């Protein structure tokens, strides 16, 4: 039997696999939420999910459309005020993994979710930081999940909203940060990890059927490949069925096409 799947499914599954039972995740909306909940429904049932709306240890049956859906609160261990979430829980250093994305990422995992173009007169006004700026520095490590594309994977950010490894890849230590920063990028084409020497992200696995040339074409900098690039394990039947069930439940609950 040939298992077929979409690039989005591959991306979600690859992100989910990076999580384990000991992780305490600060979850964003969209693909990160799908990945975290998929992990919880498959190999990491004890995975702890925290949403910035204040919901601690939430176990939603369907994916929330917003960061503060009622489902998150109803299935949470407890819900705390938003100042407390940022003070005691994120800044307090209790979160192991934060998921981030953005309109632009550079080779060091720095992210832009603020503007395309000039800040004062932007071509595109993006939503802005939200929790991202302090998620980027407060979580033990960061996983970035973004669709690959040359306008998103750029040589130089229009605006640095959230710190990765910094403009030269070495800024975190100078700022006194003890957290690791981004350790993984998952895209619809590949997964990337920072080079241990330079902190520049390199391709470490290519999703099945993706060529290095495709990744080069969709990356705005001269992307490097790890010396032993492997093929990403394709989505397994149990992963796919859990993900599809989750998305179907979600679509039914929201009465519309839901998040990925």
């Amino acid at each position: 039997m040939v298992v077929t799947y979409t690039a989005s499914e591959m991306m979600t599954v690859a992100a989910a696999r990076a999580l384990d039972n000991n992780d305490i995740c600060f979850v964003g909306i969209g693909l990160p939420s799908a990945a975290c909940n998929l992990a919880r429904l498959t190999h990491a049932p004890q995975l702890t999910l925290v949403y910035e709306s204040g919901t601690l240890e939430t176990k939603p049956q369907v994916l929330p459309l917003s960061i503060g859906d009622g489902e998150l609160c109803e299935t949470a261990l407890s819900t705390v005020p938003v100042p407390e979430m940022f003070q005691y829980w994120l800044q307090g250093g209790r979160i192991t993994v934060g998921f981030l994305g953005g309109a632009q990422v550079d080779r060091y995992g720095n992210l832009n979710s603020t503007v395309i173009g000039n800040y004062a007169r932007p071509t595109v006004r993006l939503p802005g930081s939200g929790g991202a700026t302090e998620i980027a520095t407060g979580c033990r490590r960061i996983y970035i999940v973004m669709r690959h594309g040359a306008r998103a994977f750029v040589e130089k950010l229009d605006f640095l909203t959230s710190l990765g490894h910094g403009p030269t890849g070495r800024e975190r230590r100078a700022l006194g940060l003890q957290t690791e920063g981004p350790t993984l990028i998952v895209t619809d084409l590949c997964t990337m990890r920072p080079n241990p020497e330079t902190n520049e992200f390199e391709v470490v696995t290519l999703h099945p059927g993706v060529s290095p040339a495709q990744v080069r074409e969709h990356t705005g900098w001269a992307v490097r490949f790890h010396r032993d690039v492997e093929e990403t394990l394709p989505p397994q039947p149990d992963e796919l069925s859990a993900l599809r069930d989750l998305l179907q439940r979600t679509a039914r609950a929201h009465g519309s096409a839901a998040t990925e």
Partner: protein
Amino acid sequence: MPEFLSLAAAVSRFVRPGDRVALEGFTHLIPFAAGHEIIRQGLTDLTLIRMTPDLIYDQMIGGGCARKLVFSWGGNPGVGSLHRLRDAVERGWPRPLELEEHSHSAMAHAYAAGAAGMPCAIFRGYLGSDLPRVNPAIQSIVCPFTGETLAAVAALRPDVSIIHAQRADRRGNVLITGIVGVQKEAVLAAARAIVTVEEIVDDLETGGTNAIVLPSWTVHAIAVAPGGARPSYAHGYYQRDNAFYTEWDAIARDRDRFRRWVDDEVMRVGGGAAGAAWS
């Protein structure tokens, strides 16, 4: 002891043109009814403060109420852009919109500092970000014990804060449950506070323990507004109208369609004033 007023009377009495106004509610309990009343009353030149502008500020910005926006995340959650916000920022329609932009952590700390009567809050934030370069309201201090440089933000002190809550008792004490966001802080930080509620009850039944309550002496006006948080939701009362959040994307993309929506859904509701500020 707050006054129990109609929503129209509460807004007319406590919100003034040019005010710094915070309508809070983190996804949950967003005070849409109050926001629409502000549009109906044609209040302008407001500095709108809110962590997540959401549809409510998209409507108020498109409705011409705002001169400035203080915020930390301006999107339609799970859907995409706030097109009225973008139109104001990118093209100055219906009028230019000044931005004061923060992170969530900064806004949450700034509300808490306001509630605590402090001039500022400090936190470990904005490290390595470009935001301090574009926002002079972000400063820093040095910890006198460790020498660490910490971010500082000025306390938020709205002239008026408006929130929606599940219920109040007849003395005017207010109960909020579920995702409580920064509503308590927004009320305590403000010079004046209006609370819309789903209902008035005889007893909040808190049992003295740790429910999130705003005592009557922290609130200036209470207005009963059942469904006042729709299309957001009220835990224990009604669910979020996710379909409308999705539908809003199409409404807000187009100026004319947006104008028609405001005329039909805001101006012709509740017998409001002559017209929105842009009309």
